[in-house]
């Protein structure tokens, strides 16, 4: 094997892809878009839903209606979410003509109407009618207000002062401190752990997916414009395969490092602190191994693709496996050293994500890190051996894609 050939191919793949506008945009825009996905809904909720909602309160309790109306109209929490109420008292024994109220909604005289039944105190239930019942923020305000009305009424009935009630019902606050395996301690909380774990998983999945797609596309391009024959007249198929794997792996790494820098800047700005930053080398090691694991499969199967559609199908199918670790995330968060976490750590296609997640929550035993790394490296070696066989034939097939039966025959062949 000629190392210079591998280096030249890797350099070409890296430089040519890295200087494309699409890559540069994805490098910068992806973290921005990801951030926007998290921040934008909140911004929209707080800015767009400022219009006044007209709500009719049909009160059968004769105590809750007035209080609720006052709360909704003047509640501080509704500053950005004004509700204008109209109150209608109805005798508890009178049956309510729902149709007449729904007509008011249809006629756009009200946005919603609430029925506060006489059994409100006992059953703690009320009815809400509207054309739109998916407005979460409205319900949140309503629920809080009605709960306050009920609580205040009950306190008054039982002659308990509000300050006494607050003393009784105030929440217990927990101060979490993380003990590291070396005995050091640091402040932390579940949310921080979750964000750290989620972030590391996202970096791995996006690196693997992005580089994997580029790999298959690059193969298809070279096949369809027949440059592959010129390359193979200069280098061996194995050299070509390694060159591509390494070149695009470096591209993925560049992407991962850039996003990490974005993440660090964002965490400094937001004051977010996590132990995960101390374990970044390990997470990157698993990210790189994860890339090589999936890329070593993709390069073999992907070399058989003859059309863009086939390439997308192949990439899509293989990449589905990268999101499987999300199924185990809650179990791993619950017990990062449990049986499920340990078993999953040794299943090669899960190893990169599961180990990164475990490292983000609680650094596992170093023996587990070593064994899982060796397992992954061995799996990559097997993948490379199998893919090399498929690659050397798949890369020269045009027009008709190899079937699974044909691929199986190639894999079993001795040559």
């Amino acid at each position: 094997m000629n190392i210079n050939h591998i280096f030249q191919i890797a350099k070409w793949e890296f430089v040519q892809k890295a200087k494309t506008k699409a890559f540069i945009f994805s490098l910068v825009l992806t973290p921005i878009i990801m951030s926007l996905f998290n921040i934008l809904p909140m911004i929209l909720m707080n800015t767009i839903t400022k219009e006044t909602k007209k709500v009719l309160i049909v009160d059968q309790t004769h105590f809750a209606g007035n209080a609720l109306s006052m709360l909704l109209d003047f509640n501080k929490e509704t500053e950005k979410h004004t509700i204008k109420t109209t109150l209608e008292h109805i005798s508890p024994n009178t049956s309510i003509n729902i149709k007449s109220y729904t007509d008011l909604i249809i006629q756009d005289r009200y946005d919603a109407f609430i029925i506060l039944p006489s059994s409100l105190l006992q059953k703690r239930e009320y009815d809400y009618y509207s054309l739109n019942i998916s407005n979460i923020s409205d319900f949140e305000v309503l629920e809080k207000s009605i709960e306050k009305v009920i609580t205040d009424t009950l306190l008054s009935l039982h002659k308990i002062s509000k300050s006494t009630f607050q003393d009784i019902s105030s929440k217990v606050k927990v101060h979490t401190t993380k003990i590291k395996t070396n005995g050091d301690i640091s402040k932390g909380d579940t949310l921080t752990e979750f964000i750290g774990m989620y972030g590391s998983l996202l970096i791995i999945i996006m690196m693997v997916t992005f580089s994997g797609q580029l790999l298959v596309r690059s193969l298809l391009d070279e096949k369809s414009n027949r440059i592959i024959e010129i390359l193979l007249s200069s280098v061996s198929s194995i050299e070509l395969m390694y060159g591509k794997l390494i070149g695009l792996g470096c591209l993925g790494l560049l992407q991962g490092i850039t996003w990490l820098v974005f993440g660090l800047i964002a965490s400094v700005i937001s004051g977010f602190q996590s132990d995960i930053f101390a374990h970044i080398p390990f997470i990157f090691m698993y990210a790189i191994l994860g890339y090589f694991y999936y890329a070593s499969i993709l390069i073999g199967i992907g070399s058989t693709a003859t059309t863009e559609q086939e390439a997308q199908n192949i990439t899509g199918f293989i990449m589905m496996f990268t999101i499987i670790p999300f199924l185990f995330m809650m179990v791993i968060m619950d017990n990062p050293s449990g049986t499920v976490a340990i078993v999953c750590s040794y299943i090669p296609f899960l190893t990169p994500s599961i180990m990164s997640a475990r490292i983000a929550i609680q650094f596992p035993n170093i023996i587990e890190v070593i064994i899982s790394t060796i397992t992954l490296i061995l799996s990559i070696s097997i993948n490379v051996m199998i893919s090399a066989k498929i690659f050397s034939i798949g890369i020269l097939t045009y027009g008709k894609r190899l079937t699974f039966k044909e691929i199986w025959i190639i894999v079993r062949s001795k040559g």
Partner: protein
Amino acid sequence: MLRVQKLCKTFNTSLFQKSVVAAENISFDIEFGSICGIVGQNGAGKTTTIRMILGILLPDSGSISIDGIEHIDKTIFGYLPEERGLYKKSTVWENLIYLGSLKLKDKSIIKRQINYWLERFDIKEYKNREIAELSKGNQQKIQFIASIVHNPKILIVDEPFSGLDPLNQVLFKDILIELKKTGLAIIFCTHQLQTAEEICDSIVMIHQGKVSLNGTIEEIRHQYHSYSYNIVFDDNNELQDFTLDRTCEIHHISTNKVRVSITDKTKFTELLQKLSHYQSIVSIEKFVPSLLSIYTDIISSKHIN
């Protein structure tokens, strides 16, 4: 000398449903400083043979050697495939440097060579242009430069003139002949038999995976129709009455011309004696068959057989 000996390649039966013999005992030699034309129909086995020579495909059996040495370094070859391919979004310079660097480590030689050939093809101004911006003819020139930029010892060109205008075809032909004179062995794959006849020193005809014709142009002409003679008559009436015995085959070419074929050289004197009875014969000349007619004869006889 490049020696190709008994190359065989069969594509796996179970893999491709039916067994395909792409090459069967392909053998031929090419001297350095000569052009060898490989001709044959589509699917005859030319590309498979070329791919085996280049090391893209491994032969099932047989050998390829250069001056008796079987271990061949790929850098010795330059290759211009039939289906042209370059990186469309990259510049001319980037393409040539990359493809050259896969063959040769010394970039200064590659750069010098690129500049020389760009100048030679009069396309130096396109150096920093993307391949996609170039015309088909200019892309072909770049592709050709890519195949010779590392100073190969053996150049394999597959249909190098397709898509070229007549002027550029002449330029390409001149360059091939020039490269031959510098000592390169050139394998020239083509369907254009006239061009092959023009520039090739030897021909290998592959038909249904086998070599059906191999030798220098002169040898081939001798081998086929070498005892045919064109006879021109002054008197058309005499031509109409012209007959010979069964040992001679007569083809009427035009109103005053026939072609007579005899089975071997020894019959020529006999033929002359017979012709002496005809007073209106004005010329007798040996018929030199074109490669196309030989090719057509071989293909049709194989089909009949």
